[in-house]
């Protein structure tokens, strides 16, 4: 089982967390001006990279707060976690 470092609660077991998918997808500011293709891109299209991935996670069975993480999708190892609203950290230790 993975150990995930909640930025508020510290390291906890994976089963306490839910994965919320790709992070930093910004809701369109002018939805009424969006084309169907742009809507599709926002709603459905994802990067789905093999390797380093920015994700949002929620500490569902803990503090219930959302946070962002950089995780490797091949090794499943978490590189770093950071709070919502914080700047994207460059390679840092946990």
């Amino acid at each position: 089982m993975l150990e995930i470092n909640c930025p508020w609660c510290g390291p906890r077991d994976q089963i306490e967390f839910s994965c919320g998918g790709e992070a930093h997808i910004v809701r369109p500011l002018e939805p009424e001006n969006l084309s169907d293709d742009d809507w599709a891109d926002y709603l459905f299209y994802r990067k789905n990279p093999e390797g380093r991935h920015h994700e949002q996670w929620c500490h569902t069975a803990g503090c219930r707060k959302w946070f962002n993480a950089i995780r490797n999708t091949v090794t499943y190892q978490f590189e770093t976690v950071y709070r919502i609203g914080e700047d994207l950290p460059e390679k840092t230790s946990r």
Partner: protein
Amino acid sequence: MKNKYSIFSLARNAVTYHENWREAWRSPEPRKGYDVIVIGGGGHGLATAYYLASEHGIRNVAVLEKNWIGGGNTGRNTTIVRSNYLWDESAHLYEKSLRLWEGLSQKLNYNVMFSQRGVMNLGHTLQDMRDIERRSNANYLNGIDSEVLRPEQIRQIVPIMNTSPHARYPVLGASFQRRGGVARHDAVAWGFARAADREGVDILQNCEVTGILRHNGAVTGVETNRGRIQAKKVGVVVAGHSSVIASMAGLRLPIESHPLQALVSEPLKPILHTVVMSNAVHGYISQSDKGELVIGAGVDSYTGYGQRGSFSVVEGNIGAIVELFPVFSRVRMLRQWGGIVDVCPDACPIIGKTPIRGLYFNCGWGTGGFKATPGSGWVFAHTIARGEPHSLNAAFTLERFSTGALIDEHGAAGVAH
């Protein structure tokens, strides 16, 4: 047919102590170019190549596989075949596939061990039962066999199942498709490979695609670890790695890759002669001809390419199986593994053209691709050969995510995600 498998070839080879069987397919060097390159040597890719050659006369075809054929999801699934999907589009597609399954061993001259032992989908809540009634009625209208069973009928078919009304999630009924069943997954890959090879298709193993060559908005070939190979058309059938290949061509897909797990037990004497699936408690189980219980779990919620999943998913899965079958509580598990499934937002595949001319994608089968193997290859071969989809896969375009014409099959897909 040269080197046909039959009772006579078996007897002939028995006389020589089975030392003179010929290889089932060649291992040729890549040619400079092909009419069609199929990327991905799983069941779907090999079926595509086979139908390209046998149905459309396109024999200058190569199947490129980065590892060994059938080593990905084709060898990692729980081998369940059924066609009881809700919506017309998917019901027709999976039913076409089921009909191809029914004659496949004869057609390929290779025993894929397709066994129509029935597939049972359990309902544990009132809403489950309403959905089952609705789906069964939709199946009747599409000419697909389906029965709704009451708990007494389930007990007759599977006496070892815990159908007590006092169970934590009592079994209230089920849908049952008797024409559904299981097939031997490796044999499916090998059978299609052998049949395609005889039609002249080159199967290139250990040949990893590293780039998609394009010129003026059209595909011209692929870059591989065994050199550059030209092609007029390229069909991509790589399941979990669809987004990776798409990004080589500068495309994005509405797909996320998740680990999906399965496990098998030690071999037991025959005890379970049908396939039992439950969405609500989440597990599906059948017994292989070797006697192993083949058990499937859910997907991990995170994306992953590691071909393994989390233990918590296995734990929940086994909890569900033991709740349904208390008699299995002390069975030991032999192996556990993960496959990387390409999940679409509407749990339906994408089979068709891309913005790049000559580049076709067949992906997004998610958690239920094995049952579709022959049908998927059949419609994809048609799509590549004619440059237009067959009416069976016309609805399964990439454009449906822009038009909104999604085909929501989460209910019938059978695996929670």
